[in-house]
């Protein structure tokens, strides 16, 4: 069984008081150090990066490829650390979060019928959008496919944001959708992530360095049906470990307009910042969805 030292430090009752006062920037520096050492010395890391290298090697220079590999390892580790430590970090020690485009969200919420934030699945720090928004005073409802047990294990028994599990079973899914609509009526922010698939319609095709993939059509139909403004949202981080939440203006009303707008934006982010991608292996192996 793999034991994470960071998880151990933040959950063991005798270690926790020692590490809690550490600021998140210290964790970020730890990630950088671990990633650089791992890149140079760890054979497993080299094998782990094979899918990334396979996809990008022909499209970027060797120096840029090394930079992307390093940044990918850092971001991945940092996300794992943040998910583990977020609820344990002392007040004031959480990483800073800067919003770019918050006015779009405020404008959407001013209408009183909530807003839907949509992010790419397994890209950037999408998983941190809910906790960060809740920390900054927004009423958040996150919808996803994780079971209640996994959510509680990661975020505690009572996270400061609501999680609505979207099951595959039809009738349970309808009940879950009703909860989401109820959250929007209370003028809350609903956060959804769009799954990726190896096959799909041309409208949903995302360009990615010769390994194009498709977005899940059902998600856009669902978002279109919710009736609230849908704003693309991408969570990245800077060189100090502070989160940068970028919120874009609302997309159109119909599912086609939503899909077209989001595909265009997501493709742009993937091209400019591929280091935030966390689906290299499933993409290369063309899994059913990721």
């Amino acid at each position: 069984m793999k034991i994470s030292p960071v998880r151990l430090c933040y959950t063991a009752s005798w270690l926790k008081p020692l590490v809690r006062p550490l600021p998140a920037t210290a964790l970020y520096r730890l990630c950088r150090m671990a990633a650089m050492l791992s890149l140079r010395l760890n054979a497993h890391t080299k094998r782990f990066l094979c899918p990334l290298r396979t996809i990008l090697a022909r499209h970027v220079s060797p120096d840029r490829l090394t930079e992307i590999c390093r940044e990918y390892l850092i971001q991945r580790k940092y996300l794992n650390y943040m998910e583990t430590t977020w609820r344990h970090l002392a007040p004031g020690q959480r990483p800073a979060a800067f919003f770019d485009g918050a006015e779009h969200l405020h404008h959407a919420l001013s209408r009183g019928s909530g807003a839907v934030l949509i992010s790419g699945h397994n890209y950037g720090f999408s998983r941190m959008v809910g906790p960060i928004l809740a920390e900054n005073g927004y009423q958040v409802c996150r919808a996803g496919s994780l079971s209640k047990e996994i959510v509680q294990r990661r975020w505690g028994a009572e996270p400061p944001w609501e999680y609505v599990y979207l099951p595959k079973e039809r009738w349970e899914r309808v009940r879950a959708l009703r909860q989401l609509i109820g959250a929007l009526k209370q003028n809350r922010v609903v956060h959804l992530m769009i799954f990726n698939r190896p096959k799909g319609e041309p409208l949903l095709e995302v360009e990615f360095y010769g390994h194009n993939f498709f977005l899940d059509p059902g998600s856009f139909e669902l978002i279109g049906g919710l009736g609230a403004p849908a704003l693309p949202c991408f969570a990245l981080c800077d060189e100090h470990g502070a989160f940068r939440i970028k919120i874009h203006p609302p997309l159109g009303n119909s599912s086609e307009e939503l899909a077209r707008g989001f595909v265009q934006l997501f493709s742009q982010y993937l091209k400019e910042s591929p280091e935030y991608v966390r689906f290299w292996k499933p993409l290369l192996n063309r899994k059913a969805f990721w």
Partner: protein
Amino acid sequence: MNRTTIQKQLEALIKKVNHDKDGKAISENLILFGEQGVLDSVATIKLIMSVEEAFDITVEEREISPKNFQTIAALTRFVESKLMVGLIATLALILRLADLGFC
């Protein structure tokens, strides 16, 4: 409100949320939601909300099930029972108020 009136209203609501897709004739045994249903999950939610508004009833979460929403016949029975429950509750309230001397 009799069963036929309720059914006609429900058929109109179903046509509205489904935007007259498929062109299937609406019969009381038409499957609304499920394996061969004419509605997807979003349209089903819209139907539930329209039914609540049109009949002034509240659909509880546990009531969203095939038993009540699979076919128009099932939905009609469900709405009828909700209206009956509402009527009985109103009558009970009036009798109670009468006992207390308010009317």
